[in-house]
């Protein structure tokens, strides 16, 4: 007991002496901070030896030439990523591979925002950020990498600013030109991995083809509404590409975009974070990537489902066949990162970051990607902006916003001092309000936007008859408009309108199927009947009809249908509700 006490006292004394010496050397400030942080971690403990180097301005005690861990991590890296280094499933070797790896994120929106932030935070070495778009306020509910202050800036530049603020050690490439067939393969080739965070079908095909043509793994996710999907393409020997699963593009009408269909903010957030996770796994060489697995997320039920996918399709237009080229690609590519590689080298130099080591996985080559017409293939433009304005109607069948305002006011719809009150009344009371003013006024105002958009804001008195296609509009809505137009001002049009809409639609459908089944013999009478009906409609029209939509494209097509059905006094709002908001009512929200 006595001897034990003496030994401990001696140890305490020795420690005190050492502490005094350290204090004299001026290094004491660093010691207490390191203890709680990382003394149990070998990397951090080793880093302690180099502490004066980081503290700086200690000329009296020259630090070692710079701490480098056996895995090639520097002191700042070891400290910064210590919580990942402590993780047995990750550790310093995986971290070193991640720090030496690069990824290209295509799309800095709802998916790209969290993907970029988490990849940067986790310590990826180099990040490419590609997006041609500018930040809009309506992006900010989900694209959390941007900010109000950066509205109007290039998304790629805005994302880079946020990433730089989060982790200044990440090398950044900003690609504000976005991804094009001409630059895709060259761009993709410069990175170890690509993340598809785009928002449209043509870019998804383009990026997958470029990944297949360069042998680059592709972490792909998508989110619309309350649904999310994620899988990894072009990975390893048997990993499929996007075309293996979807050789035919979806019909444009079946391809909802967030701008039109809406999206709940955290949904792309969840999917983008998962993309970052898959990228980290592949680049660091840990875990099992979601190759040949499709992860589905249903936000409303909170359920994740995984579907086992097919292997690469031998007849795939992009990655199928190819023989030697495919084999070469796989030899160069591998599934990534089993070998630790030399310190500082990391996995990805092993899987061919020297660009020429990679090769096409199949029959599509970089030059084929550049030559392919993705807009024609998918029937959509890659840019998420407004569709090009249609010029279908002659100018005398179109009204400027101010002209429509005056006509509506003269007919007793909206306008005047109580315009705002009326607008509020109409939007809060929904379809009831619209039916009422649609009947009582001296004109008929038809809004052909989707019901969800109409529900958010609409002009007072407007009747919502959504336009999907000319055929559907003809079948479902033309009879209703004719009934409303032939009904004079002041008639009990609420009932008439509703009856026309319900009865008219089904009656029209019945007639169409009856004549349709009568074959060629029925064609002439049907044409004659249609002409007669049109003449009757023209004669009966009591009220002018005005048609509005979001931008003034669908409204023109709807007016065409109505004129074909016989109406003469029917006009559309040039520029749609966007023009109305810009020129007539700045208080009206633009969706």
């Amino acid at each position: 007991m006595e001897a034990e006490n003496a030994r401990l006292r001696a140890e305490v004394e020795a420690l005190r002496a050492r502490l005094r010496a350290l204090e004299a050397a001026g290094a004491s400030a660093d010691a207490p901070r390191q203890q709680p942080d990382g003394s149990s971690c070998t990397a951090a403990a080793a880093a302690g030896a180099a502490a004066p180097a980081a503290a700086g301005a200690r000329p009296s005690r020259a630090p070692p030439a710079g701490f480098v861990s056996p895995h090639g991590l520097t002191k700042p890296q070891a400290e910064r990523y210590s919580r990942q280094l402590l993780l047995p499933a990750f550790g310093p070797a995986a971290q070193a591979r991640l720090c030496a790896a690069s990824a290209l994120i295509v799309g800095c929106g709802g998916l790209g925002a969290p993907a970029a932030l988490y990849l940067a935070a986790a310590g990826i070495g180099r990040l490419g950020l590609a997006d041609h778009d500018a930040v809009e306020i309506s992006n900010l509910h989900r694209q959390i990498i941007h900010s109000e202050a950066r509205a109007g800036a290039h998304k790629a530049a805005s994302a880079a600013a946020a990433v730089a603020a989060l982790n200044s050690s990440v090398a950044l490439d900003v690609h504000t030109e976005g991804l094009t067939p001409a630059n895709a393969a060259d761009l993709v080739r410069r990175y170890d991995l690509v993340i598809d965070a785009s928002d449209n079908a043509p870019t998804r095909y383009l990026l997958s083809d470029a990944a297949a043509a360069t042998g680059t793994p592709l972490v792909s996710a998508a989110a619309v509404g309350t649904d999310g999907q994620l899988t990894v393409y072009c990975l390893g020997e048997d990993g499929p590409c996007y075309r293996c699963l979807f050789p035919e593009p979806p019909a444009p009408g079946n391809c909802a975009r967030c701008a039109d269909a809406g999206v709940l903010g955290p949904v792309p957030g969840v999917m983008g974070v998962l993309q970052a996770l898959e990228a980290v796994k592949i680049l660091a060489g840990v875990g099992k990537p979601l190759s040949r697995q499709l992860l589905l997320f249903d936000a409303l039920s909170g359920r994740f489902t995984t579907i086992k996918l097919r292997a690469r399709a031998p007849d795939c237009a992009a990655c199928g066949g190819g023989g030697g080229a495919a084999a070469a690609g796989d030899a160069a590519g591998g599934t990534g990162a089993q070998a630790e590689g030399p310190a500082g080298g990391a996995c990805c130099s092993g899987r061919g970051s020297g660009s020429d080591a990679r090769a096409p996985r199949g029959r599509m080559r970089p030059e084929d990607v550049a030559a392919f017409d993705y807009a024609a293939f998918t029937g959509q433009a890659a840019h998420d902006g407004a569709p090009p304005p249609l010029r279908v109607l002659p100018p005398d069948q179109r009204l400027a916003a101010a002209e429509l305002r005056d006509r509506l006011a003269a007919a007793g719809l909206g306008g005047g001092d109580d315009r705002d009150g009326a607008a509020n009344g109409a939007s809060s009371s929904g379809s009831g309000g619209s039916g009422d003013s649609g009947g009582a006024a001296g004109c008929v105002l038809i809004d052909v936007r989707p019901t969800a958009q109409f529900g958010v804001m609409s002009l007072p008195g407007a009747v919502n008859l959504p336009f999907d296609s000319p055929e559907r509009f003809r079948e479902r809505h033309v009879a209703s408009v004719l009934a409303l137009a032939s009904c004079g001002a002041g008639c009990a049009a609420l009932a008439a309108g509703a009856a026309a809409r319900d009865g008219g639609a089904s009656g029209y459908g019945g007639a169409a199927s009856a004549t349709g089944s009568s074959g060629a013999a029925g064609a002439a009478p049907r044409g004659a009947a249609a002409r007669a009906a049109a003449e009757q409609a023209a004669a009966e029209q009591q009220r002018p009809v005005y048609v509005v939509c979001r931008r003034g494209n669908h409204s023109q097509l709807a007016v065409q249908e109505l004129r074909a059905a016989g109406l003469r006094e029917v006009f559309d709002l040039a520029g749609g509700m966007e023009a109305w908001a810009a020129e007539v009512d700045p208080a009206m929200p633009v969706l």
Partner: protein
Amino acid sequence: MRVRVLYFARSREVAGAPEEALDLPPGATTSSLLDDLRSRHPGLAGVLTSCVVAVNHEYVAAGEAAELREGDEVAIIPPLSGG
């Protein structure tokens, strides 16, 4: 026999429900089921030209007529493109 059809994304909007149970004649296959679905929900025809079909969480190729069994779960998964 009875199978459950699960609709995802756009197919759910067109079908108007997240899932439905269908009674199929014996010998029904994925391809005969898809024909049924097209006639039950005409709007689905356009969706089915580009989608993943999975039986019990496993991919079935587009042209394939995989035989269905009592209690099978058939998922219709169109691609999402938003982000």
